[in-house]
Each structure stands twice: as structure tokens, then as C-alpha cells.
């Protein structure tokens, strides 16, 4: 892949255990500017934990994260907050702030964290909502939005911070099938516009056409990684082929996914 491109994120030898269960057993990978990495693997095998380790929502037991060559140090709370501003995160259950309408959800961190003036933050928030196609819904509250709309607000909320990299933690898993497409559409557009992204998903159609690299995580290790063509057609391991086949069968190849 584009080795000449700027290195954004380096993940090195991440270990994490919960009790006796070692969920991550030494994960390393790198993400360059504009790349989309898709992480796949069986449920409960640490994919979400890995994403949370990247922005230190979960503190890894061992291993290091670098963002643009700067080590993310979890001992310094202020520094972590700085890093997190540059690492956007989108959650499976949206996690919108229920007491704030859509535009306030997007602007609150701009005001409270970045110290932006209210009007400036409002303008920025509106333009982010425009990117995800939700200007009309700007003054609706989370409980008044559909799942797909909620997830698009949460994408806008993360984008408003102008992150270096976006992490997506199964962004479509909590959605009704007919709503998945609108979220994947937004993500695909982001990828095309050059956003650097790490995506945990089961959506094989998306992985196949948007990913620069697919990382197959199993039993806390990276079993195999490579461009989609390689993993889909010439995987090194039979296990990879079986898993991809199963996912494609379950979730469909291009279901709910618009080619634009």
C-alpha cells in the first residue's frame, strides 16, 4: 500500500486482558493518510477493545500507540484529551447526548473542548450536518431520529473535531437493514474524500470496495491481513476464507450498499 504516504497511526504490540482472558495478544499495524483499514473477525475476539485501546478509552496492558509519531501516553490525562480530539470515534449504539438536539450534539465539544465561539461552532456544526445530509433534522432530538440518522449525527459529531483519523466500531450493527445503506454511503464518501479510517464491521460489501487493507483478527492475534482481493480470493489460511465466505453469506456482498 501507499508507503510513500504520511504515517498517521501506529499501533504496536497491544496486549489487553480482562481477568484471565487475554483478549489482545500483541496487535500491531500502521495506518497511512487517506487509508481505510477494515478489521474483521469473530465476535468477542477483541475488535472493539482494540479500537478503544487506540484512543485509550481502554488502557492497554502493554504496547504503544503513536499518532503522527507522537506517543499516546495514558498517564497524562490532559495529553490523552488532546489526542482524543484528533481521533474521532463512532460507536455501535451511537451514544448521542440525549438532552441535546442534533446540532448541539455536534457543536458541544467544539464549544466546551475547543473553546470555539458559539456562532462559529454553530456554523461548523451545520456544515458537518450538511455533509451527512441532516440539515433538516438539525433541531430534532436523538429520540426523534431514526437509527441511521442518529449514526450520521454521531459521525458528524466526530468529524466536527477535524480528526486525523476516524475509528468506527461496528457502526451499522445496531441498525435495521434498510438503514444500513445511508450510513455506509456516508462512510464511503468520507473514504473517497481522503479521510483516514479504521473500521470494525461485518459489512463485506463495504470492506471489499472501500478497504485498502482488511485485517482479520482471531483469538487476539492478526491471523492475516492484506488488500481485499487477496483476502477474498487468495487467503493464506483456510480459516480466513471460511470466515469471509460465512460473513458474505450472512450479510450479503452488497446488501444495503450503494455504489456511487
Amino acid at each position, binding site marked *: 500500500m501507499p508507503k510513500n504516504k504520511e504515517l498517521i497511526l501506529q499501533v504496536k504490540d497491544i496486549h489487553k486482558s480482562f481477568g484471565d482472558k487475554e483478549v489482545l495478544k500483541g496487535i500491531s499495524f500502521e495506518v497511512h493518510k487517506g487509508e481505510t483499514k477494515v478489521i474483521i473477525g469473530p465476535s468477542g475476539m477483541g475488535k472493539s477493545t482494540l479500537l478503544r485501546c487506540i*484512543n485509550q*478509552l481502554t488502557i492497554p496492558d502493554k504496547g504503544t500507540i503513536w499518532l503522527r509519531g507522537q506517543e499516546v501516553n495514558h498517564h497524562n*490525562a*490532559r495529553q490523552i*484529551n*488532546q*489526542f*482524543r*480530539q484528533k*481521533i*474521532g*470515534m463512532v*460507536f455501535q*449504539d451511537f*451514544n*448521542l*447526548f*440525549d*438532552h441535546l*438536539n442534533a446540532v448541539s450534539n455536534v457543536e*458541544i*465539544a467544539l464549544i*466546551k*473542548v475547543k473553546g470555539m465561539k458559539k456562532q462559529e461552532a454553530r456554523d461548523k456544526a451545520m456544515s458537518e450536518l450538511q455533509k451527512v445530509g441532516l440539515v433538516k433534522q438539525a433541531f*430534532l*432530538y*436523538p*429520540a*426523534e431520529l431514526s437509527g441511521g440518522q442518529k449514526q450520521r449525527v*454521531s459521525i458528524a*459529531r*466526530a468529524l466536527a*473535531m477535524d480528526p486525523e483519523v476516524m475509528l468506527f466500531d461496528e457502526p451499522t450493527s445496531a441498525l435495521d437493514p434498510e438503514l444500513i445503506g445511508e450510513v455506509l454511503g456516508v462512510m464511503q464518501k468520507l473514504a473517497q474524500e481522503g479521510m483516514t479510517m479504521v473500521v470494525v464491521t461485518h459489512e463485506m460489501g463495504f470492506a471489499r470496495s472501500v478497504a485498502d487493507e482488511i485485517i482479520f483478527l482471531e483469538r487476539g492475534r492478526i491471523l492475516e491481513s492484506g488488500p481485499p482481493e487477496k483476502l477474498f480470493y487468495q487467503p493464506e489460511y483456510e480459516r480466513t476464507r471460511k470466515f469471509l465466505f460465512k460473513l458474505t453469506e450472512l450479510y450479503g456482498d452488497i446488501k444495503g450498499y450503494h455504489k456511487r
Partner: protein
Amino acid sequence: MENLMVVYEALPFLLQGIITTLGLVLSALFLGFIIGVPLAIGQVFASSWIKKIIAIYVWFFRGLPILVLLFLFYYGLFTMIGLNLTAFMAAVLVLGLRSSAYQSQIFRGSIQSLGKGQLMAAYSLGMSKGKAIWNIILPQALRISIPGWSNEYPAMLTESAITYAIGVMEILTRGNFIASRTYLPMPIYLTCAIIFLLLSYSGMKLLHLLEEKVRMPGFEK
């Protein structure tokens, strides 16, 4: 007829008690609120030894009869440390501290009912713990707390009459004064009771309006 005349003559004196009672109740509720909220936050987010201290505080103030607390603080502690308080001030402090213990449990429940997701989202945007609690958790927890908190007002109102025991000039103290002078307990105490009922009704009405006003869209009952 004679009864009515007595009540009529006693009324201004009794009504002055409303000011004392309401002053006491509102001050104590306010004190309970500004102490109760940090206690609740501490019980959810603080380190384990702070949690322990708060648990002991809550246990102490919920575990003792109000009368014991009043005597213990007004005649005991405040005198011992040379704090020269009026009966009213002492009552505000004691009822307020006691209320903070109860209120903290209401707010703690609300905070815990919010779940961790929104907190994670706030952190992921670079908010510090303090900012996340202040901007995301508290505004929601306080809204959710209103129905449960609404109990605190009538509870405090009815409990406030016990400060009669240390001579706070609230409604019952005044009623008692007149009843013992006129030997007409029934009409006087009945008047006191009606005043209490009216106060409790109007307070509940106001709280209900507040609940309606700050309700989050989509969270209608």
C-alpha cells in the same frame, strides 16, 4: 362561632409561620441539593476511599431519627464547638445535611441509569471527566431525578414541624402556642393542617410544571 373567631384572630400569627416553615424547607432542600449532587457524583466517580467516606456520611444521616440529630447538633455539637446558631439556622443545617444524604441517593440512581455509553462518547471527543460530568451527565441526571426528587419536598415540609422541639417558630410551634392559650386545640391544629396541605399541594404543582418544562423530547411518559 367562637371557634371561628379564635381562628380568625390567630390567623395572622399562624400565617407568619409559613414564612419560617417555607424558609426552613427551601433552605434545607437547597443545602441538601448542593451537597447531595457532589455526594452522588463522588459515589459514582470518585476513588474507593472517598466512596467509603460518603457511604458513612449517608449511613449516619439516614440512620438517625431527626429528633436525635436536632438535639445532637443543636444542644450538643454546635454548643461544643462554640457555634452560636439560632434554632432556625441549626434546623436548616441539620435538615439540610440529612436531606443531602437522601438526595444523593436519588441523583446517584439517575447517574447510574444513564449508562456508560454517553460518557465514553464525551471522552472520545476530548472532554475531561469533569467536563463530561458537568455538560453531559448532570443535565440528564437532574432531569431524570425530578419525579423522585419531588418526594423530598412534601417529606421535608412535613418533617419540618419537628423543629418545634428546639423552638423554631414555624407553623406548628405557633399553633401549639395558641392552642395552649385558648384551650381550643381542634380548630387551631386543623388550621395548621390545612396550611400544610395547601403548601404541599402548591409545591407539588410547581415541581410538576418544572418536570414538564425540562423534559427531553422523545422521553414523554
